[in-house]
């Protein structure tokens, strides 16, 4: 599958900055993120927990929680700025053109509605299906995401399902209307590897069939490896590295990315050997250090890192690989 000819990305997020009201005044959580997703492209988003992945995605469909708002930036989807769309347009996009899979399936599913009804809704409102058709399709979707006994399960309430099943229901909802873009926020954390594989296959399949684009937020780097085209690594509300997947695994450039990859336990590891992890904790929103947000935890940090904020720059010697790190940039340049 090659990207479409016009080369214009389906989703183009520029300088997205998200701010939160705290007792001490506004604090920036997401800080000028740039992210593009081409048609039919699958982008993986990884990053440390709490770095703002979920909020970024939520802001795209304007569903940020109270007190949190987009301060600046644009998010063009198929040429239209999602952040400025009218309510009705937005409604067409939500669930129809952009499918969404939320991170916390238990609380994200309505506890007092049967899952079938929840699943039918996008079909009814975007595909104008009749109730009966929608139900058929819903059963079909449940089967696709690997829920056994979908005819009966469609009448279950969320609390009657296992964690993984709820998550699959969420996925089914996200995929219900064959969206142009699927934003999936850690959709497979509660799934066993076989089901996970099944879901991955399903997404790949849909991508092929419908030319669907996917943003896949995850911590499972292994999973990403077989699924995505490109990976964006987030740290403290900024993209620190953005690279084609092979490139990223082959040449992780940002020290944070390297730290992440080093932390993955391998099947071949010995039990109880200590896993390596990145020391320290990420900065909180509103308490960011002055320079590079990763600098305090970075083994390679130099004085410039504490002074100025690095921006994403192409990595010399590779296409589509960009990184925001003074040291790495310099090393690359030196190497080149």
């Amino acid at each position, binding site marked *: 599958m090659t990207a479409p000819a016009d080369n214009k990305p389906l989703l183009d997020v520029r300088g997205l900055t998200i701010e939160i009201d705290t007792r001490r005044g506004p604090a920036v959580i997401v800080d000028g993120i740039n992210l593009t997703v081409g048609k039919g492209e699958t982008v993986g988003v*990884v990053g*440390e*927990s*709490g*770095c*703002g*992945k*979920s909020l970024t995605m939520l802001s795209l469909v304007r569903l940020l929680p109270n007190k949190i708002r987009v301060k600046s930036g644009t998010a063009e989807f198929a040429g239209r700025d999602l952040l400025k769309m009218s309510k009705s347009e937005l409604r067409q996009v939500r669930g129809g053109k952009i499918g969404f899979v939320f*991170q*916390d399936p*238990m609380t994200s599913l309505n506890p007092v509605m049967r899952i079938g009804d929840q699943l039918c809704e996008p079909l009814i409102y975007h595909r104008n299906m009749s109730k009966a058709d929608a139900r058929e399709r819903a059963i079909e979707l449940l089967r696709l995401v*690997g*829920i*056994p*006994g979908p005819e*009966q*399960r469609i*009448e279950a309430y969320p609390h*009657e*399902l*296992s*964690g*993984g*099943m*709820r*998550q699959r229901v969420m996925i089914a909802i996200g995929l219900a209307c064959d969206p142009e873009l699927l934003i999936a926020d*850690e959709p497979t*954390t*509660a*799934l*066993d*590897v*076989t*089901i*996970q*594989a099944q879901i991955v296959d399903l997404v790949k399949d849909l991508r092929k069939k419908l030319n669907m684009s996917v943003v896949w937020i995850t*911590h*499972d*780097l*292994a999973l990403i*490896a*077989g699924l995505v085209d490109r990976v964006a690594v987030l740290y403290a509300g900024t993209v620190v590295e953005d690279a084609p997947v*092979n490139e990223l*695994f082959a040449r992780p450039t940002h020290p944070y990315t390297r*730290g*992440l990859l080093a*932390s*993955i*336990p391998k*099947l071949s*590891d010995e*039990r*109880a050997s*200590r*896993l*390596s*992890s*990145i020391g320290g*904790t990420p900065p*909180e929103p509103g308490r960011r250090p002055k320079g590079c947000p990763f600098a305090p935890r970075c083994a390679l940090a130099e004085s410039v890192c504490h002074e100025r904020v690095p921006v994403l720059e192409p990595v010399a010697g590779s296409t589509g690989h960009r990184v925001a790190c003074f040291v790495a940039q310099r090393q690359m340049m030196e190497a080149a």
Partner: protein
Amino acid sequence: MAAEPLIKVENLVKHFVVRLGAFGERGATVYAVDDVNFDIFAGETLSLVGESGCGKSTTGFTLLNLQKATSGKVLFQGENIVSLDEKRMRPYRRELQIVFQDPYSTLNPRMTIGEVVGEPILFHKLATKAELPERVSRLLADVGLPARFAQRYPHELSGGQRQRVAIARALACEPKFIVCDEAISALDVSVQAQIINLLLDLQEKYGLTYLFIAHDLAVVRHISTRVGVMYLGRMAELASREQLFSNPLHPYTKALLSAVPEADPELEKTRQRQILTGDVPSPLAPPAGCRFHTRCPIAMDKCKAVVPEWREVVPGHHVACHAVEQGAAG
């Protein structure tokens, strides 16, 4: 391996009655956990893996008597705790902890993180009021959260942060035994590594015992002493980590292992997965005989009719499969 198990699970069964139809007029039974037997030894990590919905969480819940078992026994320190009422169960609660799978919903939306973590400490008198802030910050730091998070409410956290709060809350009780139900699934690998290290350190230091429910087999392999594989409410295989990963006997275990992705795009492209075909049975209507037979590549006629026995084919290696019984000699 120590002779006396810390927890002995005998014939544990948990069925749910669910209502179907618009007004709940039809009833059906979910066979969530069906006759499960295993032991957990002090100081070990027993991992439970298996298909989503196969009853791992339910096992965890019933084990801790958070859901009433339909039948069966769970012996802890010689007492069958699943038969205890809430009041008589209470003394055991501190020692037996759980990290829930859906952390957000298990956090009281009207309690700050500090209160969430501090509450068990105060309640179980593990620290004085004066020591409390210090204790809470330390626990938060242990799970990689800044101390200031004590003042936040659950909804102000990201998914991974909530999960870490749940872990901190369980650790706050200074328990003997923790059920970790997908406790680290929402964490990035670095934090995950940090938490795993923490769990292992605690185990080493205090002899903690874990029932570790997870899907990430790499993590499971890293952390467990023994691994149990569940399929549709039943235990399929239980063996030491080395045994299970190097010599899986049950066809489901084999399929499972073959599906593990690797963090390497090149490898991923070439990897051969064993795809399971056939009907995925529903726990509402589990198949007769071996529950796996509908998808089993080596299913025999016998499998459709006879429930395979839970047998120790090699010392320390239990499996429930007709095929294995035949081939166990070989």
